[in-house]
């Protein structure tokens, strides 16, 4: 989809020619035509760490080593894009009785508080807990794929990739049936606005989300059931009890981090398989290779771009960074770095080093990675088992979006 380039801002003094490169991560035309091809090109044409004047002006970390090092150095690279002290100040100025403005903790908070807010979620998203959900995730995947199959041709994104993670969430949250329609409508609104990063609109949607969830959250406090909300009420945040505000924060973070990521990840995988019939054949003949294929597709098409703020003036890998500078951890670049992965453009699930950082690195490592892996693997398994050989429907070309979660808008398949 073509987008208008954001205006270029003036170049600050510490940005030298050597680190200047003009790239609009939301609207670069070549990027939107084929994101990962553009990234491979960037490894040849752009510096490994560069500053772009687009979207307010920010750094892009493209090399694997810059992403890996910065993700693990939480002191130099803060996840508090707006410092928590400032957020507290702002919240304190709200009139009494104003609705709680939810925050996506623990994504936007640094250790040591990060550890405290992340801890209660950990067990519910551990490999062991997620494995217990595998059967029900498979049932959902089967019913979506079987529902699509008779059509002979369909948009995989809206038929399978979008509904699956939403239904998994509804199950985990135990949201009652009568609330599910409102929840789905909100997810749809969220997805349709994936290109719009206006903060006021995002806050409005998050308030809608907490309004939909509130009754269920409060009910589970008194009447615990076998669901995530009830479980979270029973844990503590550091040394204090969980409050309704904490619960709303958790709902918001899981909503924003766990839906469009999975949608884009599964869709990129389906796109790759649709354009590589020989891989479909290979995986159909030996499904035990699907977990390795899932990993290599995550590496080849890494698609999330987390943000950081530079804490103090520093020199990092030979580049001068100033306190307050914004950094894009361009993980899709990291996983296509030839220094780390020889012939990075080649998909090969038997490559020697297949260890990617699609789920990030350091303490903010994706909390939902175990869930995401199961969702991806199960969908690929069922897709390959249930559909005959599939390919892209040439009459409906694939279009892509950029931003913080990169991927196809639609993937029309035919079989």
């Amino acid at each position, binding site marked *: 989809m073509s987008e208008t380039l954001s205006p270029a801002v003036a170049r600050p003094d510490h940005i030298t020619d050597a680190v200047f490169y003009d790239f609009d991560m939301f609207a670069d035309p070549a990027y939107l035509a084929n994101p990962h091809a553009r990234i491979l090109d960037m490894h040849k044409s752009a510096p490994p760490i560069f500053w772009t004047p687009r979207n307010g002006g920010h750094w892009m970390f493209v090399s694997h080593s810059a992403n890996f090092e910065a993700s*693990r150095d939480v002191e130099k690279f803060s996840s508090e894009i707006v410092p928590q002290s400032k957020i507290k100040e702002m919240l304190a100025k709200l009139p009494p009785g104003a609705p709680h403005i939810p925050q996506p903790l623990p994504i936007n908070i640094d250790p040591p508080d990060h550890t405290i807010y992340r*801890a209660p979620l*950990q*067990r519910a*998203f*551990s*490999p*062991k807990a997620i494995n217990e959900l595998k059967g029900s995730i498979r049932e959902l995947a089967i019913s979506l794929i079987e529902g699509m199959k008779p059509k002979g041709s369909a948009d995989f994104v809206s038929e399978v990739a979008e509904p699956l993670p939403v239904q998994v969430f509804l199950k985990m949250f135990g949201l009652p049936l009568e609330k599910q329609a409102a929840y789905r409508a909100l997810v749809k609104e969220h997805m349709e606005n994936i290109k719009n990063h206006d903060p006021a609109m995002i806050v409005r949607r998050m308030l809608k989300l907490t309004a939909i969830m509130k009754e269920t959250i409060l009910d589970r406090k008194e009447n615990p059931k076998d669901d995530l909300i009830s479980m979270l009420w029973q844990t503590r945040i550091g040394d204090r009890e969980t409050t309704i505000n904490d619960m709303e924060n958790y709902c918001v973070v899981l909503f924003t981090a766990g839906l469009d990521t999975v949608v884009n990840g599964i869709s990129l995988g389906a796109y790759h398989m649709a354009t590589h019939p020989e891989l479909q054949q290979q995986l159909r003949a030996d499904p035990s290779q699907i977990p390795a294929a899932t990993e290599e597709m995550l590496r080849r098409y890494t698609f999330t771009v987390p943000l950081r703020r530079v804490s103090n003036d520093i020199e990092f890998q030979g580049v001068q960074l100033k306190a307050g500078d914004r950094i894009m951890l361009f993980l899709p670049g990291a996983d296509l770095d030839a220094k780390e992965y020889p012939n990075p453009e080649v998909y090969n699930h038997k490559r020697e080093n297949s*260890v*990617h*950082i699609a*789920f990030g*690195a*350091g*303490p903010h*490592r994706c909390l939902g*990675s*175990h869930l995401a892996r199961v969702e991806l693997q199960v969908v690929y398994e069922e897709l390959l088992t249930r559909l005959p050989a599939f390919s892209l429907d040439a009459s409906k070309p694939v279009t892509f979006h950029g931003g913080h979660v990169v991927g196809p808008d639609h993937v029309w398949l035919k079989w």
Partner: protein
Amino acid sequence: MKIRIDKARCVGNARCAAISETLFPLDDDGYIAITEVDVPPGQEQIARRGARACPERIMIIEEDSK
């Protein structure tokens, strides 16, 4: 052969345990539960694979000196 693990830097990827849950046991949160693996004879290959699967690169393989 031994695997030494910088446990404090584990962030719970659990890729080691995906290779071998017995060599690389996890705690209830899904983080590595141990700081060292004394690799039983015959399991060197799988232990190496598990250590190399760590995205944080916090597992050091110590081969036996002959």
